[in-house]
């Protein structure tokens, strides 16, 4: 399994393209009298470097989707950015898309920042042909004559091994894999600096999944884009990402080069995730993790993992562990680990 882990592709010293600093995004609902504040993202900081594929892993409802929504500026009530900032290199000075003027945001969308959405089934307008999506999404950024643009689209489709005829098709006429490749082509045609990929392969079967992952990788290499790759599937992360962050209950718990994480997981939660990956020839029963992810409307105090943590101590129940560098490029938020590191 470890052999599968890719070597970091991007230079370690490349400049970051995205800084996320102490981001706090809460859902504040007041629905028919029931006021709730869900701290879906609660103080997350990280940076993504140019040209790297940065993975974000975690169970469902760990706040991954909220985090990338906040980064992508898809902030609609009841989601609210409560604190912190998001800064892209190509849109400096505002601290987040949600704070930038709409004109600037519109300018950078798709040209610099594109998005591959979860569930390819419904992301394309069902009553219009695939081609129109390319025109709507990319043509304003690419410009030139319509003919040139069409040629460019066809050429780009060839990269994802799609026949130009898909342009004339309606989304429902394509298979799931074709549709996902079409959205991949759509997200990458402008050669954006940054791509957010939210579970792009989840609904696909394994063979198609592999193919699509390969394409993402090759296009990313070709264009030099950075990718924020979100999935709960550690296997996929192992396959494609350069660096990896693990999220638990709205906070990052560990971040390191992907290979490093798989080789040397420090946080008990990360260890659990990796140990629960299937291994060939290993029949030892997986030890389960007791309990379930916390309710984010009313999270436990201190380290949010402590009710399930085999290493939990008193301090874990009271204080929030900080993300500290345990090793070069390897950050982790755990009292037990950090003490050990210091010791």
């Amino acid at each position, binding site marked *: 399994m470890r052999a599968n882990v890719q070597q970091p592709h991007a230079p370690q010293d490349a400049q970051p393209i995205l800084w996320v600093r102490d981001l706090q995004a809460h859902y504040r609902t007041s*629905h*028919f009298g029931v006021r709730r504040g869900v701290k879906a993202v609660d103080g997350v900081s990280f940076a993504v470097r140019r040209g790297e594929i940065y993975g974000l892993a975690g169970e469902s409802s760990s706040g991954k989707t909220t985090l990338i929504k906040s980064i992508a500026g898809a902030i609609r*009530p*009841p989601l609210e950015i409560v604190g912190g900032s998001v800064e892209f290199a190509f849109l400096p000075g505002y601290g987040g898309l949600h704070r930038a003027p709409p004109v600037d945001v519109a300018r950078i969308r798709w040209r610099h920042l594109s998005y591959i959405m979860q569930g390819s089934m419904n992301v394309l307008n069902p009553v219009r042909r695939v081609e129109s999506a390319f025109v709507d999404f990319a043509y304003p950024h690419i410009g030139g004559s319509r003919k040139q643009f069409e040629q460019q689209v066809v050429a780009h489709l060839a990269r994802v091994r799609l026949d130009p005829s898909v342009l004339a098709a309606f989304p429902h006429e394509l298979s799931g894999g074709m549709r996902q490749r079409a959205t991949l082509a759509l997200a990458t045609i402008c050669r954006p600096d940054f791509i957010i990929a939210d579970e792009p392969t989840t609904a696909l079967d394994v063979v198609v999944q592999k193919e699509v992952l390969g394409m993402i990788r090759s296009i990313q290499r070709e264009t030099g884009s950075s990718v924020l790759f979100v999935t709960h599937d550690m296997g996929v992360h192992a396959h494609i990402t350069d660096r990896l962050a693990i999220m638990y209950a709205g906070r990052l718990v560990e971040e390191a080069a992907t290979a490093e994480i798989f080789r040397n997981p420090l946080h008990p939660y990360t260890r659990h995730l990796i140990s629960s990956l299937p291994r060939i020839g290993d029949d030892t029963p997986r030890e389960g993790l007791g309990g379930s992810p916390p309710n984010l409307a009313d999270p436990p105090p201190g380290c949010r993992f402590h009710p399930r943590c085999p290493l939990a101590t008193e301090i874990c129940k009271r204080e929030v562990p900080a993300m500290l560098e345990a090793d070069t490029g390897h950050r982790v938020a755990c009292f037990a680990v950090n003490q050990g590191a210091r010791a």
Partner: protein
Amino acid sequence: MAILLRDLLRHSPEFRIGAVLLAFVLLLSVLASFSPYPPESVYVVPPDVPPSLTYWFGTTSRGQDVFWQLSFAIRNTLLFGCTVALISRLFALVIGLISGYKGGWIDRALMSVNDTFIVIPLLPILVLFYFVMRDRISWLMLALIMACFGWAYDARLIRSVVMSLKAREFTQTSLFSGMSTRQILTEEHLPYVMPIVFSTTMNNMVWSIGLEVTLAVLGFTDINTPTIGGMIYWANQHTAMVAGIWWWIAFPTITVVMAFIGLFLLALSANAYIDPRSRLWSVGEAS
């Protein structure tokens, strides 16, 4: 249920306004049972008195108290509209769901029946029916006839929605997971169809009450039973609009509009409460 109502009342302004409007209208219609005058009696009060403390809504040229007449009228009219809407919704839902989902010859057969009901012009039929039934025609009977003609259009609408739902993935998933047709229709498709049913209910009531008024204006109405149409009929007979007896027309119209705005707001807020997607919107509007 009580909590639900309390929540709605406390936190949804739409619901509050709707509830107040509707409560007023319902109160008015309930009051009909306490009317000091029988509904069809004329010249029981002095005619043509403008609204005053004695006669809140004034009196008609026929010597009737507009307030009490209106209370009978709005009760009968609402009952009429609800009956038509309820019965025709049932038809429309069942036929629309089955026809849209099943397709094939069932669809063709049902749609042939459906289309026949759509294409037959209603007004001459109602008029002829009136001629045949004469004074035996009651609002209930009229309601039944109109229900028979009021479903077809919406059945088609529901069918078209179901047809496009059917093409979606979740239907296939449910099908593969072994759900029966009835289950798919009631558990998967019905929630999508319900908002349409709600909005067509409103439209259907507006339609049926409007048609009742139309019939009344043309003179084909049961003039013994006070309804909104009946009130307008008698007001017309006395040229109330130009004779300056505006209260004879204004109060029934205002009441009908209030009833509908009330119903509409209630449906809107109930929809928002039920539909999780629109929850997000309601918050957005509040903030």
